[in-house]
């Protein structure tokens, strides 16, 4: 209490000044019509501003939750897509719903670490073998392919992205169906190279490349990129492919679990 009085004594001038100004201000906004109206408008606007700002901030805090819900929903939707189903039908003419069962499952994951400017680039995601992720699973994102799982721990996985000198994936032209092997030349994170296209294939700039199932990694039909330019190299065409995935801003990815992968691998390994 003594300190309070000492404080008031020490700062009496500034305190009195503020008290008088506040009294005057209250008089102004309570007993003068134009000022009163104006103050009402200002305080309403101020309240509105505060309200919208708080709403924006709270919405931002819910964003993570909303994203998680959306990716879970997306994973469900992907599973219901035609290309995720394994065709059980022996007779092609028998087209019933029971003819299809799930072939691909999608595990949503968040990107924790990412690089795109090294010769060999990897992504770390927040899901591991606890969540059912295993080596050699493919990884996609809404705009296209991302890479292959190369290592897993209990809670995390390491993905070798397309931007890696070790990466090879079999792709095909969406319109003509010709296939070629896609690899990355290590220069530009937007451009990959498609090699060994036979000379008789008609290539147009802008042609869409999608994955095919030859490499037993990706579901077929996933977007890879578009042809940016092409040139002749020895007896083949080579093409620069503008990747559809922007590796500088991957946020959420889907790890693709192929339920029939092992069966196919065992079969294919018998003849090698």
């Amino acid at each position, binding site marked *: 209490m003594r300190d309070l009085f000492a404080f008031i004594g020490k700062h009496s001038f500034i305190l009195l000044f503020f008290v008088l100004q506040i009294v005057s*201000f209250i*008089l102004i906004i309570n007993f003068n019509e134009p000022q009163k109206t104006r103050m009402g408008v200002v305080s309403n606007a101020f309240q509105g501003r505060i309200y919208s700002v708080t709403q924006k901030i709270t919405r931002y805090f819910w964003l993570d939750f909303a994203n998680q819900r959306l990716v879970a929903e997306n994973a469900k939707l992907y599973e219901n897509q035609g290309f995720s189903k394994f065709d059980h039908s022996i007779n092609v003419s028998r087209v019933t719903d029971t003819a299809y069962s799930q072939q691909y499952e999608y595990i949503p994951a968040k990107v924790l670490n990412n690089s795109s400017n090294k010769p060999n680039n990897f992504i770390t995601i927040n899901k591991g073998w606890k969540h059912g992720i295993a080596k050699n699973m493919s990884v996609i994102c809404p705009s296209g392919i991302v890479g292959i799982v190369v290592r897993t721990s209990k809670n995390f996985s390491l993905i070798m992205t397309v931007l890696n000198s070790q990466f090879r994936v079999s792709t095909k032209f969406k319109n003509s169906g010709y296939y070629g092997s896609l690899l990355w030349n290590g220069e530009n994170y937007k451009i990959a190279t498609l090699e060994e296209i036979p000379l008789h294939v008609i290539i147009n700039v802008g042609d869409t490349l999608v994955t095919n199932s030859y490499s037993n990694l990706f579901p077929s039909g996933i977007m890879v990129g578009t042809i940016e330019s092409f040139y002749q190299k020895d007896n083949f065409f080579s093409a620069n492919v503008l990747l559809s995935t922007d590796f500088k801003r991957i946020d959420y990815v889907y790890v693709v679990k192929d339920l029939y992968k092992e069966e196919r691998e065992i079969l294919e390994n018998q003849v090698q």
Partner: protein
Amino acid sequence: MENISRYTIIFISLILLQILVFNNIPAIGMISPYIYLAFILILPVSISPILLLLLAFLSGVLVDLSITSYGVHSFSTVMMAALRPTILKILAPRIGYESNNTPLLSHFGTSWALKYITLCVAIHHISLYFCFTFTFSDLGFTFIRMLLNIALTVFVIILSEIFVFKK
């Protein structure tokens, strides 16, 4: 004691002059001279700042009551009184003030008085016009009226110091 009665008479006469005469002069447009500020300006340099604030508030309230602009004048006058010590410090002569100095034209000269009065009146009128309009829109018109009013008030106060408050 003699001083107190002298200043009381000056205070009452200036407030009455303001309320009865100057508030009723139909000056150019909406501007009118605020002679009552002269009281705050001529108080001795050594006056306690607390007393200065209280006197400023009192005179502001009285003028407000007369023209039903509650709070507008008291706010501006208290603002001016609060900044008066700072302005005096800025304009202090090289040797400083003596304890019995009063900030008058007759004592410190015309150019010093002009600077001192203009600064104080400008602070008062800027605050006054913003309290009146209570908005930052239409600044140009407000600004012109404010400048004219500052000039008019300064002119009236200088005249009063030349002819009335000689000592």
